[in-house]
């Protein structure tokens, strides 16, 4: 009798662990993962160039990784999803234009660009963080529109700024930066090619991946240091933190600065890999795919980890890369952009409307 009674309980327990595991993986992650597998399945079934697909996916993961990672400090600091990412991105773009205008090339140019970008991002981040401290509860909305305003304001800057390098400005009129600047001959794909090696026909963009990995490690380590722990503590219990002598106003600014600096460096790495610097409205909507990556990885508005960053970037960027060639075999026309809009914003909506996550 005793044994028999234990069986249903055990079964219920097993069901409970299954449900627990499912919750751990997360329904969206599961759905997207299955979707990705299905896409790869179709690719294999139709004898597509699988190696090329994987190569492209890896490249895009490496390229976008830092921008996704940049969201992490903001969530750790209790600021929610940092839709104000373009503020940092614009700092990085200004740095790109400065070094390009000076005609610098190669490793020093790349290093200096990242450095200038980071340096510009610090005051920008401080200002942004200060403002977010005054607009508690509406950080995401304020961040979104502040980002939009900065990007559109910078459009005026790009047309009026005193850059005269003939490679950068419009040929006609000799004034105003072009919408797209090529990096060929400057630091185009410098990191991508560094120690790059082919493995089973897939070429690995070692340098960019290493930068992403190093940045992840750095962020992980930072949140184990005193300063990082302080930021996390102030987020999880501001009152308790204040009692311990931690001002959460300060830690929130620190988190914002960290996030903005990462975004600035992230866009430099992105441009390096992409081969072009895109100005004007290009950065306007860049925060949304990055946010979707993080959320697909399993993060919520108030909780995120390095695993979420890596898994999310892998899943979402791979889907974006693989979807176009695969679906174009079945459907004429580019359905990827539409699919991206739906997946990306559906994911963000799902995260915003989850109960008990505020």
């Amino acid at each position, binding site marked *: 009798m005793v044994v028999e009674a234990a069986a249903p309980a055990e079964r219920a327990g097993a069901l409970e662990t299954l449900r627990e595991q499912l919750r751990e993986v997360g329904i969206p992650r599961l759905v997207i993962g299955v979707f990705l597998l299905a896409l790869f399945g179709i690719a294999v079934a139709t004898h597509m160039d699988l190696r090329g697909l994987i190569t492209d996916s890896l490249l895009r993961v490496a390229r976008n990784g830092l921008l996704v990672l940049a969201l992490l400090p903001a969530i750790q600091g209790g600021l929610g999803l940092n839709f104000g990412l373009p503020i940092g991105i614009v700092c990085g773009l200004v740095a790109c234009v400065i070094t390009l205008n000076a005609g610098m090339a190669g490793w020093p140019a790349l290093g200096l660009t990242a450095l200038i970008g980071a340096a510009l991002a610090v005051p920008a981040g401080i200002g942004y963080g200060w403002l977010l401290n005054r607009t508690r*509860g509406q950080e995401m*909305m*304020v961040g*979104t529109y502040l980002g*939009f305003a900065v990007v*559109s304001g910078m*459009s005026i800057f790009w047309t009026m700024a005193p850059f005269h390098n003939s490679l950068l400005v419009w040929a006609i009129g000799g004034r105003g930066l072009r919408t797209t600047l090529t990096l060929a001959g400057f630091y185009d794909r410098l990191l991508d090619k560094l120690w790059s090696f082919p493995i089973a026909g897939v070429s690995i963009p070692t340098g960019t991946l290493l930068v992403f990995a190093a940045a992840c490690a750095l962020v992980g380590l930072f949140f184990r240091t005193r300063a990082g722990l302080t930021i996390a503590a102030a987020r999880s219990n501001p009152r308790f933190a204040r009692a311990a002598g931690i001002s959460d106003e300060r830690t929130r600014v620190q988190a914002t600065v960290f996030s903005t600096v990462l975004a600035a460096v992230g866009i430099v790495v992105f441009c390096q890999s992409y081969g072009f610097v895109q100005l004007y409205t290009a950065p306007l909507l860049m925060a949304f795919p990055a946010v979707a990556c993080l959320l697909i990885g399993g993060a919520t508005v108030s909780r995120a980890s390095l695993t979420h960053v890596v898994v999310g970037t892998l899943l979402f960027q791979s889907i974006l890369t693989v979807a176009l060639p695969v679906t174009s075999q079945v459907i*004429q026309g580019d359905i990827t952009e539409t*699919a991206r809009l739906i997946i990306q914003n559906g994911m963000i909506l799902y995260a915003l409307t989850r109960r008990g996550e505020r």
Partner: protein
Amino acid sequence: MPPRPRARVPLHPRLAHAAVPLLFVLLCVLGAIAGHITPLFLIREMLARFARNAVLVLSLLVPILAGLGLNFGIVIGAMAGQAAAIVVTLWGVRGIAGFALAWVLAAPIAVVLGIATGWLFNRARGREMVSGLIAGFFANGAYQLVFLFAVGSLIPFHAREVLLPQGFGLRNTIDLDGIQYAVDDLIPLRVVLEGSSVRVPLATFAIIGLFCALNLFFQRTKLGQELRAMGQDPHVAAIAGIPIERNRVIATVISTVFAAWGQLFFLQNLGTLNTYSSHEQVGMFSIAALLVSGATVTRATVGQAILGTLLFHTLFVVSPIAGRVLLGDAQIGEFFRVFVAYAVISVALVLHAWQKGSRKSSS
């Protein structure tokens, strides 16, 4: 309704309220002087632009009353309006009958979408604005899925001339000449200004006036009063037995339907539909227009909607011309007006959150 006791507002905030519209008037006047714009030219432009945009701006008022903030989800309503315009054009119903049919068709679509949006807002309490913005993006994806891929492939469709060459998906622009000026010319009136004849859309103005009156009347109804109570203090309203969640959905539905109808006004004046982009900036420009009048996230009146539409679209006309004359580049003026739209919204959001925060910490 008994007149609300007028709280004694200190001078400083009252000045701050008037500061935004005053700044805008100044910008417009300076731009007009710099661009050598004659008042007659401005009047001609504004007659059309006001008729186009006023209802869209008015559609924002009800959610603000209910405490939902700025409804960035009106983009979804605009899509419903466009869907109706497409259907009417394909059926070949022309003139005012076509326009009326478009209104009738748009309403149920907008109601369904409004209920969905309202449900979403209820799930995302305290984050309605950002959710509305993202919901607009999401709906844009769904809209593309329907009109760029499903039409002609999954949905049977015979009018080949509006399809893309590949045999499915609508073309990027659709000519709406069937319903163009259907309302504007209902009461035909031309005024000769500087030797050229100018269309005065009297009927459209009358309907805009009707919408204003409807908004004012609505605020005096029981539902309107309930919404106002919710906007002022949701907790007290809940204790008083007001069905908050249901009312929030109703407010969103009203706004979405108004937006659909407003978008139809916009299209009938313009005469062409950019299938995949006409709706995209509706939310941003309408909201910016409302805010330049000094309206806030929690308080906006019919008068402010009208004033804001006039001011914002004056700047819209003036800034590229001023940019061309002052800096030799109309592009800069165009960048400037987009920047102004975003900046105005940012400032309003910052002020809103700032005041809310300081009120919380002082209590």
